[in-house]
């Protein structure tokens, strides 16, 4: 059960006072609290210190924790990726900022061949409490090399966990869990969410990794998504409600380990599923989700599982092209309509 909902609907009577903060503030609080709690937690990456992180997530931390625990690095992504392995297996807990997911290709070997495999290939003894953070997603005119959604790559690599929150509340709770996790966690932050506000309670709470969340209950169709597209899905659901289509929206939150049960439970009820992500449709994570839905819920499906994702092109710069290249509230609503008609 999601604490946001618990808070806003407590007793159905006196809702607790909200504390609306930005998504990036929520992330900052998570790191700050964990750095205070555990002296082995430290932050490094490009521009995390003086600059405060390219989206201000680490602002103020250098002043608070000093240059030994908040380290600006050169533009050396392979070093950045691999140093976390050495630091973590020897007893530190790095929270690493890659800025943009797009830059992680440079560090791919260190993440995939070194970090992800270290524990298993060396016999299962090491702990690698690493969080690799990166911004991803489209919509703000950053063009082809600063806009990708590459989470599918990482879900395919055993040894990695993959998280992608959709709101400030989850972001904080998930990041705290990620920092406390003894495994390598990829933490992906949709860049269009940083300046969205969410209700985040004061004080300590965690959102566990590997637990999907029903963000909206509904009877006629199930939308499965994560990160910013959950917000679009919720808006589409509102629109569809006025058309008499009652949509359930499930936020995966963690892509690996994948909590598919709530999705299958939902499909048993709605008999229809739409999987939505901002990543390119072809070869995207939606394929895994769709495949699992039909594997586990075949007898309940009244229509093929439908997938929405970005077109098969790099992300274009021009606004009309960029906006047409990935799912929108409207295309999601249309997707559900088609799903209802079995198209």
């Amino acid at each position, binding site marked *: 059960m999601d604490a946001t909902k618990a808070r806003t609907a407590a007793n159905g009577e006196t809702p607790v006072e909200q504390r609306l903060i930005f998504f990036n503030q929520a992330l900052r609080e998570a790191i700050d609290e964990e750095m205070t709690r555990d002296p082995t937690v430290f932050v490094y990456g490009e521009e995390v210190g003086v600059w405060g992180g390219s989206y201000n997530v680490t602002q103020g931390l250098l002043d608070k924790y000093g240059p030994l625990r908040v380290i600006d690095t050169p533009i050396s*992504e392979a070093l950045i990726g691999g140093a976390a392995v050495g630091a973590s297996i020897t007893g530190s807990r790095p929270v690493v900022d890659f800025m943009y997911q797009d830059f992680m290709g440079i560090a791919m070997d260190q993440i995939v061949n070194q970090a992800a495999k270290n524990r298993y290939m060396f016999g299962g003894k090491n702990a690698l409490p690493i969080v690799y953070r990166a911004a991803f997603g489209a919509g703000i005119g950053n*063009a082809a090399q600063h806009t990708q959604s590459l989470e599918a790559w990482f879900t395919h690599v055993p040894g990695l966990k993959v998280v992608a929150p959709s709101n400030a509340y989850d972001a904080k709770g998930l990041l705290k869990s990620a920092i406390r996790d003894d495994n390598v966690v990829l933490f992906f932050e949709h860049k269009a969410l940083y300046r969205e506000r969410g209700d985040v309670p004061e004080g300590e709470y965690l959102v566990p990794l590997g637990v999907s969340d029903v963000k909206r209950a509904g009877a006629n169709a199930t939308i499965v998504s994560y990160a910013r597209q959950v917000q679009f899905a919720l808006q589409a659901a509102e629109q569809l409600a006025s058309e008499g289509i009652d949509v359930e929206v499930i936020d995966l939150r963690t892509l690996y380990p994948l909590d598919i049960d709530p999705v299958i439970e939902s499909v048993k009820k709605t008999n229809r599923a739409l999987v939505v992500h901002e990543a390119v449709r072809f070869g995207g994570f939606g394929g895994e989700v769709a495949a699992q839905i039909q594997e586990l819920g075949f007898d309940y499906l009244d229509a093929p599982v439908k997938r929405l994702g970005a077109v098969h092109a790099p992300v274009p710069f021009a606004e009309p092209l960029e906006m047409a290249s990935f799912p929108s509230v409207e295309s999601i609503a249309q997707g559900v309509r088609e799903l209802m008609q079995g198209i």
Partner: protein
Amino acid sequence: MAARKPKAAGKKARGASKKSKLPGKEMLEWMYRTMVRIRRFEEAADRAFQAARMRGALHFYIGEEASGTGVCAALTDSDYITSTHRGHGHCIAKGGRLDLMMAELFGKATGYCGGKGGSMHIADLDLGNLGANGIVGGGLPIATGAALGSKLRDDDNVTVCFFGDGAAPNGTFHESINFGALHDLPIVYVCENNQWGMGTHVSDTNAGPGIVTRADSYGIPGVMVDGNDVFDVFAKTTAAVKRARAGKGPSLLVCETYRHRGHTVHDQAAYRDQADVDEWMARDPIERFRKTVTTAKAMSKKKLEAIDAEVLQEVEAAVEFAASSPFPQLDTLLQGVYTDV
């Protein structure tokens, strides 16, 4: 209007004119026009951005004009360059058209890339501009590959690879220069040390006695360049290009320069020391050029002003062209990913 470089900048040996230490008149005019085109173009882009006619981000080259200009002055039209995220200046110096560039920044169908690239992704193969790059350090292997191609095809071209002080600690720097040196490739690696990579000073990203000293360990010349003096840049690039074209291999040039603005249009650059800023501002490459050529009576104030006026007009026309151009049609969305699919 035409920003054609004088023939003197062709494949034949050239450089300082014989009479004075300054290049010939045509070249001087080209240099001045090029530097002013860069600055005015970006000032106009800045205004357009502030007026919300553009989106995304812009990385201004203002203050570094002498570097790209001096380098490209030493190149032929068929020589190649690879550029960076801060690429407007390189593109213009290599002969790029302001209207097509501005339209691209506006995301218009008439832009260099039909609106698909934006500020950080402009290329013009016809001018030998192999493209800007959103990935810091990303251009070094590409440039090295272009030079390798030239060697294989024996096409007599030289490639100039622009990159920043921030890219110098990247693995691509090392892998590329090592390979270029091993094969004596026709390439000039030009590090534009504008002192900063976002908010991090070069001294916090590059260990050791200076980026230029790395050249020694690859067995290639390392040359310090006053990146705010277009003549110094031109002379040293000319020598390096000559060497490269003769099959003697790469050089590493480090142009010491300064970005006048923040890292992007969004950045106020509060992390900088004002004294340092002032010192560098005083070395403004365009001002310096004006002073030098007028003192030497190589160009008249009138001529300079005439060029100023022409450029202003060109830039205005470019903005007008960009503003009045249509956005790309949605049916172009999938075009150009493959040659055939």
